[in-house]
């Protein structure tokens, strides 16, 4: 079959902050870059990030990247790789300045410097007093950054393939990445994008859960593509529930609300966090705050007629702080709750938010997988960055303000390493036709006609299953049952049918393909969570409530083939400083 082909130096899949920052580095260096995105770039979910990006600029209080590094290691419950964390915290400072030079409309202090606010888990002097480290553009930091990066890519004349959906990665027999098969959503026609290097930057998979801060598009496409390409997914059992989603609805209320002085209250009017984190209180790390809220509700101290949420109070901050620093969440509250947070408390509950796990990479953004000579062998030509990747800088729990940082730093790092790879590998390799056929088969599977369940209904069922069996608190029995149900559901998904087989802008087809991706990631998540018999960061086992460094200070690797789990050690050696040894984690 004559498949249309396009050829580029680099294919970037995903147009969020990671993809666009990599694209910018590359396009500005003269590489031919194609960015494929299933939505117009500024619709990528980076746009919804609110609170800010961490960098030890020290614009308000003295600060040091080394303190930031300590906080990130501790926040991740000692599962993060310390070489990558050192790199990220050092790079944070020039990265934020570079963004500012690109035009990001950061809020400002009176002296004209970038505004910074306090955020959870951020301290001075290695666990001392609260730090003020999170650089913000009001509470629309993600929007400001994403639009700026898109704008700069327009200047750099990056090639954009807007509304193209990536079907599968292509690798040759030696495992070298060759590009991807993509689908033009508007015409329904497949297109082969051949590239010497491929960067997966497809974001998270929050659509695994029913109540989520994530957008409809966050279906983990890149992670699932890697799984199918024989690459394992790392640490997917660590999934963050954000403490303050709007109760029952899921829209995010930024941690910046607590950074600006907001606090959580139970039905007795108690500041509940004093009990769980006597020192940091409302600015403890997110896993701690989420569990605290869940416990309050479970023990009958929740608010509202059903006692199913707690309240986030901002009404003491005053009109000006809310208007200037939190205008976006004020809009959200007015639209979805008909209340003004400058006067009324906001009902909140932990909501699925962020995947700490993902495609295993090193600190240069190169995908690493066990092949022949150990667990960290580089997959030639393949890169991953952003939420879909697991470097791992977030370990078992990500700190607020570190996700924008992660996508920017590692998008940029991947861009740089890709340039070196392109120089060393100046020629395209021949496309493996068998790989193209396998990818095409994925599309053809949904051409089957006849009776069958609808993908839409199955997606709803999958989301409920994950919420019931792999939520904030986990135990063996619940997850074992979840695995059984998941197996049955996956069998039904394999038999599902589309009724609509049209070509042009067939969103039902895209959603069916996304459902397959979610189903593979659900299996990865529950399998690894079931296997990990300890509590660490966001992974909270009722039946194993303690962290177990002797047996479990290691990364999980899930392989799709045989649903197998393997492990690899945590890199505890930083680049230049002393290692932070595991300590009991208190806030």
């Amino acid at each position, binding site marked *: 079959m004559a498949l249309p082909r396009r050829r580029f130096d680099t294919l970037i899949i995903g147009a969020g902050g990671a993809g666009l920052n990599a694209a910018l580095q590359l396009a500005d260096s003269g590489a031919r870059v194609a960015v494929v995105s299933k939505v117009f770039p500024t619709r990528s979910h980076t746009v919804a990030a609110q609170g800010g990006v961490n960098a030890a600029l020290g614009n308000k209080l003295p600060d040091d990247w080394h303190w930031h590094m300590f906080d990130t290691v501790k926040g991740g419950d000692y599962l993060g790789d310390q070489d990558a964390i050192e790199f990220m915290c050092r790079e944070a400072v020039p990265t934020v300045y570079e963004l500012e030079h690109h*035009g990001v*409309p950061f809020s400002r202090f009176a002296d004209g410097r*970038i505004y910074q606010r306090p955020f959870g888990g951020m301290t001075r002097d290695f666990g001392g007093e609260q730090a003020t480290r999170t650089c913000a553009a009001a509470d629309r930091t993600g929007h400001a950054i994403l639009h700026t990066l898109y704008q700069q890519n327009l200047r750099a004349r990056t090639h954009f393939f807007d509304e193209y959906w990536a079907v599968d990665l292509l690798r040759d027999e030696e495992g070298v990445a060759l590009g991807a098969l993509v689908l033009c959503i508007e015409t329904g026609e497949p297109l082969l994008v051949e590239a010497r290097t491929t960067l997966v930057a497809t974001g998270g998979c929050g659509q695994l859960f029913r109540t989520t801060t994530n957008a409809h598009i966050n279906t983990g496409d890149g992670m699932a593509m890697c799984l199918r390409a024989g690459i394992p997914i790392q640490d997917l059992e660590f999934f963050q529930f954000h403490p303050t989603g709007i109760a029952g609805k899921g829209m995010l209320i930024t941690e910046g609300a607590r950074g600006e002085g907001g606090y959580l209250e139970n039905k007795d009017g108690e500041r509940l966090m004093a009990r769980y984190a006597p020192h940091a209180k409302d600015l403890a790390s997110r896993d701690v705050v989420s569990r605290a809220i869940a416990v309050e509700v479970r023990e009958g101290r929740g608010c509202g007629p059903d006692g199913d949420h707690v309240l986030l109070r901002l009404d003491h901050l005053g009109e000006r702080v809310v208007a200037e620093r939190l205008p976006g969440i004020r809009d959200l509250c007015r639209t*979805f709750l008909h209340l003004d947070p400058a006067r009324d408390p906001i009902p909140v509950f932990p909501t699925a938010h962020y995947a700490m796990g993902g495609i295993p990479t090193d600190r240069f953004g190169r995908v690493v997988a066990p092949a022949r000579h150990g667990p960290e062998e580089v997959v030639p030509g393949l890169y991953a960055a952003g939420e879909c990747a697991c470097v791992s800088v977030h370990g078992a729990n990500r700190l607020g303000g570190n996700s924008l940082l992660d996508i920017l730093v590692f998008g940029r790092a991947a861009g740089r390493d890709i340039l070196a790879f392109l120089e060393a590998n100046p020629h395209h390799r021949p496309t493996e036709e068998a790989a193209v056929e396998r990818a095409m088969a994925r599309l053809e599977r949904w051409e089957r006609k006849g009776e069958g369940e609808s993908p839409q209904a199955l997606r709803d069922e999958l989301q409920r299953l994950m919420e019931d069996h792999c939520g904030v608190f986990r135990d063996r029995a619940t997850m074992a049952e979840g695995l059984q149900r998941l197996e049955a559901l996956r069998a039904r998904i394999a038999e599902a049918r589309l009724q609509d087989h*049209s070509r042009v802008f067939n969103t039902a087809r895209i959603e069916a393909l996304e459902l397959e991706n979610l189903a593979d990631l659900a299996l990865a998540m529950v399998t690894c969570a079931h296997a990990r018999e300890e509590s660490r960061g966001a992974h909270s086992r009722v039946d194993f409530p303690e962290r177990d460094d002797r047996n479990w200070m290691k990364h999980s690797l899930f392989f799709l083939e045989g649903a197998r789990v393997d492990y690899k050690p945590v890199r505890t050696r930083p680049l230049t400083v002393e290692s932070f040894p595991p300590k009991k984690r208190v806030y």
Partner: protein
Amino acid sequence: MRLEIYRYDPESGAAPRMQSYTVEIRPGMMLRDALLEVKAGDETLAFRHSCGEGVCGSDGVNVNGRNRLACITPMAELREPVQVRPLPGRPVIRDLVVDMSTFYRHYREVKPYLEHRDPLPEQEIRQSPEERARLDGLYECILCGCCSTACPSFWWNPERFRGPQALLAAWRFLADSRDQATAERLEALEGPYRLFRCHSIMNCVDACPKGLNPTAAIARIKAEMLKESI
């Protein structure tokens, strides 16, 4: 509640039509929720949507004659039957999905990126809170297209008039104390069409789901041009 939704399938050869659906309204339900419920029963309905909270700008549609974002339009506010059509004046690809390429082209044409020509400082370029405040009401645009596709001048001259969105973007950079391309930006908007087709009809202001005011931005550009010319 009854919805009448514009349907067009280019592959069927049939003419566009309005199709009726009935959706049970829940408290707090938004138009996007209603469209999703329709789609659950009829997977052939195509529309764009993503974040569900009015920040990604995907789901601009025309509702009872007004351009709005479906995800932040409460069903309770709408008159029955709720008429949902694609954004006006753009070629329809399918159902509620329109071709926005002309709209995006105008955005690109205004060079919507910061141009700072002095050597860059090692740290941030300083900007006072007052200078930064000039960007409020400008930088928040989500490129949903509700404004430009509500603008009669854009309907008549879609190829030549930049439209309210692109002009708001142009002013966002003109207004930025860090930008040093003022003369070129103004010059690029001269002539009878690009800027001056705006007749202050203010449909854009009415349509903007983020409460921004492109008409005011356009007036500021005109004033700035006048200042430059004398």
